[in-house]
């Protein structure tokens, strides 16, 4: 219902929206990729950063010492910040878990992008076109999760070892997690999910009721970040 209304508004607004909307429409039978983060498994090793390391090394994400200029795709954040509450169970009080782009079903970032440099693929992945990005950072203002990073200067000096198989970014563009589209397109799961020794990051097709992620979500309650905003994230947290 939500999708058809959005598509209707897009088509009704202006005829040439059709072109832009073509890429954004969801195929009813195709996959909708999502992730469920099982915190009980993640918490087995509090200091573990294997998911971040695997992602950042492969994708040439720079390590910038100045926190204000950081570039991050997947990182650990304290739960008290991600899901603010009171009187938390002791095991969650100081716990943290991975956060990343939520690949929203209704992403505000793609709505505001003035060039279509960030857009939603039919399989639900919110993608970045680094060739087209003009660096206006409107998407960063629009993202309610702080999932996006900007290259305030050339990132290369801050990349310890460049993985030649994946491009770096240039100064002046926005970047973020892409759910490893380059792997998905050849039938592989995202790196963070594969890198986790505890299998805490369950990746799969939310449209397939028999997928592992759906089985997990039907067995245990999955929380999503800031659902009141209507963005419909595809990343679930099982606390």
């Amino acid at each position, binding site marked *: 219902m939500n999708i058809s209304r959005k598509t209707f508004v897009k088509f009704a607004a202006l005829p040439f929206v059709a072109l832009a909307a073509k890429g954004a429409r969801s195929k009813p039978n195709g996959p909708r990729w999502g992730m469920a983060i099982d915190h009980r498994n993640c918490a087995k090793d509090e200091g573990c950063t294997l998911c971040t390391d695997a992602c950042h090394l492969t994708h040439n994400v720079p390590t910038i010492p100045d926190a204000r200029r950081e570039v991050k795709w997947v990182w650990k954040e304290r739960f008290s910040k991600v899901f603010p509450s009171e009187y938390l169970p002791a095991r969650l009080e100081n716990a943290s878990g991975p956060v990343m782009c939520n690949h929203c079903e209704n992403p505000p970032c793609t709505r505001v992008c003035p060039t279509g440099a960030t857009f939603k693929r039919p399989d639900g992945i919110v993608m970045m*076109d680094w060739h087209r990005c003009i660096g206006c950072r409107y998407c960063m203002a629009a993202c309610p999760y702080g999932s996006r990073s900007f290259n305030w200067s050339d990132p*290369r000096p801050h*990349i310890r070892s*460049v993985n030649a*198989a994946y*491009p770096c970014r*240039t100064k002046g563009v926005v970047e973020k997690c892409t759910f490893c589209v380059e792997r998905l397109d050849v039938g592989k799961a995202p790196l963070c999910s594969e890198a986790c020794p505890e299998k805490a990051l369950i990746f799969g097709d939310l449209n397939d009721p028999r997928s592992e992620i759906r089985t997990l979500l039907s067995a245990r309650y999955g929380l999503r970040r800031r659902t009141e905003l209507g963005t419909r994230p595809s990343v679930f947290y099982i606390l």
Partner: protein
Amino acid sequence: MRDQPIILAGLAVFLVIASFPFWYNAATLRAAARPALQLPPGKQCVAPVKYMKAYHMRMLDSWRDQVVRTGVRRYTSPGGKTYDISLTGTCLSQCHQDRAKFCDRCHSYVGVRAAYCWDCHNSPGNAVRTAR
């Protein structure tokens, strides 16, 4: 109207300076040396050489749009062979290992900066490189 001689003289000086490279080369009878490209031996390009010479930038453009925007990652050449669409993984890794001897030669000859491909994309030669 009294400015006319000054204006005309200025224009003449401008024309002489602007055309300097042409008449200098003509006067010294020096033909510019064309760049010699190092072609990979016994390989077939993803498209006819003539097309690649004229339109490689369009192909790269459409390749990147296909990969990034539509997720199409395979390319079928006119000869029927299929390739992975990848600047580093296919063009550079399989044929033109040294971009300095291939891309850069023509680009510096005609004075066209090779866009900003190498701001982001990497050469396979230095697969794992420490930061500059």
